[in-house]
């Protein structure tokens, strides 16, 4: 990635949109505007800005501890930003409850899967289906996409393999009828063969929803995503189209190694 090329240097904090802007065509599905988030007294996000257009797959890359997961948590209001805005379809999410954010159509496929280990596979899916929607249809759809889950449907989710748990987490995101999926490190800790399956599942998911993907596996991230942002020390340091860079790009790799 040559930083003078297509990637825009984003340290300036993107084009700050005026407050008067309302939902209309041309409004990005998600616009994170200069957010600052903390854990206790620790300043984790120091002004992150990014945009995700409807239908896109956008990758968020960077080293461990630079704030990628916190960015997702801040969007979901699990770690509410102290400053800045998170606009979803033009509406500011900051100050809303996480459950309201989720009901607005944002799904989370978190790091470490976080399946409910004491619940069965079927129950894990069931609980993710929005109230009033057809649970059986959702289950049937999941089993069609992930036949392995049907075989284990009565098993406790804690007994599944890592790959199966990841599939279940993705399935949970899919049946939630979400427009935007926040996917955190889906390939982490999985064998290469399983990673390919997961990649396929995410790519299938991206047909139905917009995806913001946090991923350390650079080739995978570039393969799945249309655009990318690079996060370092709590701020966006670079961004661009994935077509314009390669996984061997030294400038890009610089941000991923310690």
């Amino acid at each position, binding site marked *: 990635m040559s930083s003078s090329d297509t990637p825009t240097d984003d340290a300036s904090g993107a084009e700050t949109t005026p407050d008067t802007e309302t939902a209309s065509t041309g409004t990005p599905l998600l616009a994170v505007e200069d957010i600052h988030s903390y*854990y*206790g*007294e*620790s300043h984790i996000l120091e002004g992150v800005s990014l945009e995700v257009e409807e239908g896109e797959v956008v990758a968020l890359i960077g080293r461990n501890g630079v704030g990628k997961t916190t960015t997702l948590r801040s969007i979901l209001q699990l770690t509410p930003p102290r400053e800045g805005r998170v606009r979803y379809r033009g509406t500011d999410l900051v100050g809303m409850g996480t459950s309201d954010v989720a009901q607005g159509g944002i799904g989370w496929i978190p790091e470490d899967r976080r399946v409910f280990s004491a619940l069965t596979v079927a129950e894990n899916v069931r609980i993710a289906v929005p109230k009033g929607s057809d649970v059986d249809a959702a289950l049937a759809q999941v089993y069609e996409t992930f036949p392995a889950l049907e075989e284990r449907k009565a098993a406790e989710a804690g007994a599944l393999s890592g790959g199966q748990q990841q599939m279940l987490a993705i399935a949970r995101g899919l049946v939630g009828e979400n427009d935007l999926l926040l996917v955190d490190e889906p390939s982490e800790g999985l064998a290469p063969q399983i990673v390919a399956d997961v990649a396929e599942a995410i790519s299938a998911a991206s047909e139905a929803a917009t995806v913001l993907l946090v991923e350390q596996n650079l080739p995978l991230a570039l393969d799945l995503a249309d655009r990318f942002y690079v996060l370092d020390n709590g701020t966006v340091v670079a961004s661009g189209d994935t077509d314009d860079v390669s996984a061997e790009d030294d400038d890009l790799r610089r941000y991923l190694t310690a």
Partner: protein
Amino acid sequence: MALALYPGFYTLAVNSPAGAEFVTVLPRVETMIVVLYFGLFAMSFDFISGYTGYLSFGHAVFFGTGAYTVILAANGKLPLVPTDTPFVLLLVLAGLLAVLLAVAIGSVSFRLSGVYFAMITLGFSQVIYVFVRDWDYVGSNPRDGVSVSFDTHPEAFEVGVPFVDALGLGLGKLNGDELALGVVDLSTVEVSYYLVGLVVLVCYFAMQRIIHSPFGKVMLAIRENEERARAVGYDTDRYKLVAFAVSAFFAAVAGGLFAGYSRAVSPDETFFFLVTGDALLVSIIGGFGTLAGPLFGTLFDELFREFLSKEGTGGGLLPYLQSHLPQGVLEAVIYNGMTVGEAVDTFLNGHASLFLGVLFVLFVLFVPGGLLGTVRGRLGGTASKQVAARLRSAGTNETSGGAASEDD
């Protein structure tokens, strides 16, 4: 210290023109003795619970150990301990026994934290409470308690230099010593007040020294963030165990003072878990994690209970109203034949717990620093606050101390 002059002040105040008002609001000297020894127990509870953050919900077991050590020794039921062992030595012995017990309980319990630590210490203390309640070795009716026999130990328990009778004074309302020093005549109760106060003062300064020592800083570090304290290289398990043993020692001394003054104890007022509950209550009101706070909390608690006492001894609300309000007001019927006087007697007197409970809830919600902590907070931080601040800035993790970050 203002407390040193209290008995004299009380005598003066009660005999002053405003005597009736003073009798109403001031605690009697007897009550102040309770404040002192129970305050010491509450301080020892706070020493471990407030400073390290490990809620010792079975702390009453050490108070009970102290109390029963004194009584059993005086009754000749403690092997190898003669009945005429000087009281001061008994207090030390009681403290050491409690230390042993604390090491035994602590070495198992400190593998747990949070709610689990509170529960396992509660479990241990209840096992011992239930045992003592039925242990007929201590006396013929262990459930109702046991008192010091006048056959084996006729004289009062003396606070002073062991084995030198001239340098000791007896505790107790009935058979304690009186003292005439020039123009000052002190009654047995007043002498007891000073003797108990002396021991409590020594214990207070000892605990305060520890809190302000490097050891105390580690205790605070454990409360603020145990993992980091361990990462920095402190053997936190050992620190916790020693702190627990120290607090047990002083809890036992408090129990011993109680037994020495009252000459009679029962399982329900020593080993029972609600005794710990009382210490918790006064610690919160006075200031959790402030060494002197629990003493002030105890003072407040006892004062309030006496003010609303059923008997009306030592003043209180109803006797005051009776002597100062016109009879018509007291006998005015408010509802269904109930007079004002009866209403006070029914709903207020003897029910101080209700108002203390409400106050306690309000303190937990809105004044988590307690009386003393809040005053201190207004006046500016102390050593522990600086430690806490340093710990916070040293790393990234969230601190868990939150509210109670004041020093003694």
